[in-house]
C-alpha cells in the first residue's frame, strides 16, 4: 500500500465527511438501538438476530454503495486489497465519522481485518448478561460491507471477531475474499 494513495484516501474520507449534511449521532445510535430491540423481539434467538442484522445490513449495503460512489469521489474499487483500505479510510469516515485500520492480512492476501476502537452505533449500549456472549450488536456492519462490495463485483464473507460490547479491547471485522465476479458479455449466452 503506497503511502500517497493512503493519504489521498484519508483526504477523500475527511472531505466526504466534512462536506456532507449532518444528523445527530445520538439520533443514529438511539434509532439503531431501538431497531435492534425490535428485531430481538421478533427473533429472540441471538443467532437468528445476528443473521437478520447481517441480512438487513446487506440490503443497506447494496444501496449505500451508490451513495458512496456518487459522493466520495472514489472512482472505482479495483481489487480486494484496495477496497479494504477504501472501506476503512473513506467509507468508515464518511458514514460513521471514524477511521478504521486494515490489519491481519494473511499471506495469500485474501483475508484481512478492519479494526476500529470507536463504534457510534454502540454508544450508550450495554448488553444484558444473557446476550453478552451471543449477540453481535453491530452485525449490521458486516452485511453492509458484503452488500456494498458485491455491487462492485467483489464477493466476500464478513464476520465480527472482536466487539467491545463483549469486553474485547477493540472492534474487529474479519473479511474473507471469495471471488471477483466477471462481467457478463451479452453475446456469450448465444454461443
Amino acid at each position: 500500500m503506497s503511502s500517497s494513495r493512503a493519504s489521498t484516501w484519508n483526504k477523500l474520507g475527511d472531505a466526504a465527511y466534512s462536506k456532507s449534511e449532518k444528523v445527530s449521532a445520538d439520533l443514529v445510535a438511539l434509532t439503531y438501538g431501538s431497531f435492534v430491540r425490535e428485531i430481538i423481539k421478533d427473533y429472540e434467538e441471538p443467532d437468528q438476530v445476528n443473521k437478520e442484522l447481517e441480512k438487513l445490513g446487506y440490503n443497506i449495503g447494496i444501496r449505500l454503495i451508490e451513495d458512496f460512489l456518487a459522493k466520495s469521489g472514489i472512482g472505482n474499487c479495483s481489487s480486494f486489497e484496495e477496497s479494504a483500505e477504501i472501506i476503512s479510510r473513506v467509507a468508515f469516515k464518511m458514514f460513521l465519522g471514524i477511521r478504521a485500520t486494515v490489519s491481519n492480512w494473511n499471506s495469500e492476501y485474501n483475508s484481512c481485518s478492519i479494526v476500529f476502537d470507536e463504534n457510534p452505533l454502540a454508544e450508550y449500549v450495554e448488553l444484558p448478561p444473557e446476550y453478552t456472549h451471543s449477540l453481535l450488536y453491530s452485525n449490521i456492519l458486516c452485511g453492509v460491507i458484503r452488500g456494498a462490495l458485491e455491487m462492485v463485483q467483489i464477493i466476500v464473507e464478513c464476520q465480527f471477531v472482536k466487539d467491545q460490547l463483549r469486553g474485547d479491547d477493540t472492534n474487529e471485522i474479519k473479511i474473507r475474499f471469495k471471488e471477483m465476479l466477471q462481467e457478463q458479455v451479452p453475446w456469450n449466452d448465444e454461443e
Partner: protein
Amino acid sequence: MLLSLFVVNKAGGLIYQQNFSDTAAKLSSNDYLRLASTFHSIQAISRQLSPAHSRFGFGIERIETDTFVLQAFQSQTGVKFVVTATPETKNLKNFLRRLYELYTDYVLKNPFYELDMPIRCELWEVMLQLAAEEHQRSAS
C-alpha cells in the same frame, strides 16, 4: 436543450424514462424498452474494443448525430443514465452526475423503492424537474 432521459438497470432493463421537451421523439413503451436493452448491449460490447481491456471502461459514452447527441453515464455497479439533447447542448456530463446523486437520494433512500425495479417516486420526479430547469438555465 434536453430531450429525453433513460435510466437502465444493470441487466439492461429500462427503469425510468422521461421527456424534457415536446420536441423529443415519442416512442411506444415497447420501443423504449428495446432501445434501452440494445444500448445496454452495444455499450457492453464496445467495452471489449478497449485496447487495454479494463474492467472500468464505460464503453460508449457519447454518440453524436446531426440532430441530437446522446450522453451516457454508468456507475460502477452498472446502473446507467442516458440523456439525449440537441447537438449544441453543454454540460451533459455534469447533468448526468447530478442525476446520479439525485437517484442515490430520492430513489435508493426511499423504503418503498425496490432495487432494479421501475422508479415511481414523487420526490425524484420533482427533483429531476428542478435539475433539468437548473441545467437549462446554466446552459443557455
